[in-house]
């Protein structure tokens, strides 16, 4: 069980390192612009103008980041609910098996 925990911790650390190392190595001078926006800028450079506007553009970057947070929260909430239920179900099954003679 402890080995299992160690592997879990190492996996989490590796994910964090993959995301945090660029920040540390970049020295803070990189802007970390979104690639989607960079691609859009590259397209506009070629003289193209978009022909359709978003139906509901968030009114400020604060509102936009709030909506992104909402999306992550909904996803995280549902994922946590499912994993919690599955874990609870397994615990119940184990308890029932142990209860049998």
């Amino acid at each position: 069980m402890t080995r299992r925990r160690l592997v879990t911790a190492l996996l989490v650390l590796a994910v964090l390192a993959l995301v945090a190392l660029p920040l540390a190595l970049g020295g803070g001078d990189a802007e970390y612009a979104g690639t989607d926006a960079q691609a859009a800028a590259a397209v506009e450079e070629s003289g193209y103008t978009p022909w359709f506007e978003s139906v509901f553009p968030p009114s400020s970057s604060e509102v936009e980041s709030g909506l992104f947070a909402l999306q992550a929260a909904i996803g995280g909430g549902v994922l946590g609910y499912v994993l919690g239920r599955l874990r609870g179900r397994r615990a119940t099954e184990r308890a029932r098996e142990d209860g049998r003679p």
Partner: protein
Amino acid sequence: MHIAEGFLPAPHAIGWTVAAAPFVVHGARAVVKEVREHPESTLLLGAAGAFTFVLSAIKLPSITGSSSHPTGTGAGAVLFRPPVMALLGTVVLLFQALLLAHGGLTTLGANAFAFAVVGPWAGYGAYRLARALGAGLLPGVFVALALADLATYVTTSLQLALAFPDAAGGFAGAVVKFLGVFALTQVPLALAEGLLGVLLFRVLTTSARPELERLGLLPAVPAEERG
């Protein structure tokens, strides 16, 4: 991988919508069939949808000094085969196009083709290949999620290059240009996504073992032999 609203010429927008539509319709039928025949799958279907919902909302910094988001479509593709993700992925894109002004309705077809069709199929293909070569479930999950992520961004690059060939370098020049924006940035994020997938499936192998056995991801073990 989100091509912004209005950023594809109309013929391309229509073409990709026509190309993606049958996959999404087939995916919707696959979801309905799965829920009807196996109601116990509903929980895991929710987990697959939620996983891609979270991951595609989070933009992460990368070594190239730009940032991008993972896709999370490989998990559902491994669990339920890719058609299911054609629907779930498109729902995510629709949510982002309507509420977040991220992606768009005119580019929904192209984005769905990259995110909800090519990504899941590439990930599923990589998973099947890895398992056929003798890899276990978790290494298979790792390559599936990493490749679904990368393949999505490569597809977006090709779609943009097709619509906007370079003045000097033509289509090939544009491919290099858009891959330069997307592909390298995505490599560490794809690796991180692969590891997150391994974490998820480590939980599922203990908590959702009966489901994984029924879906053929783990060999079925008779109850009396279980430790």
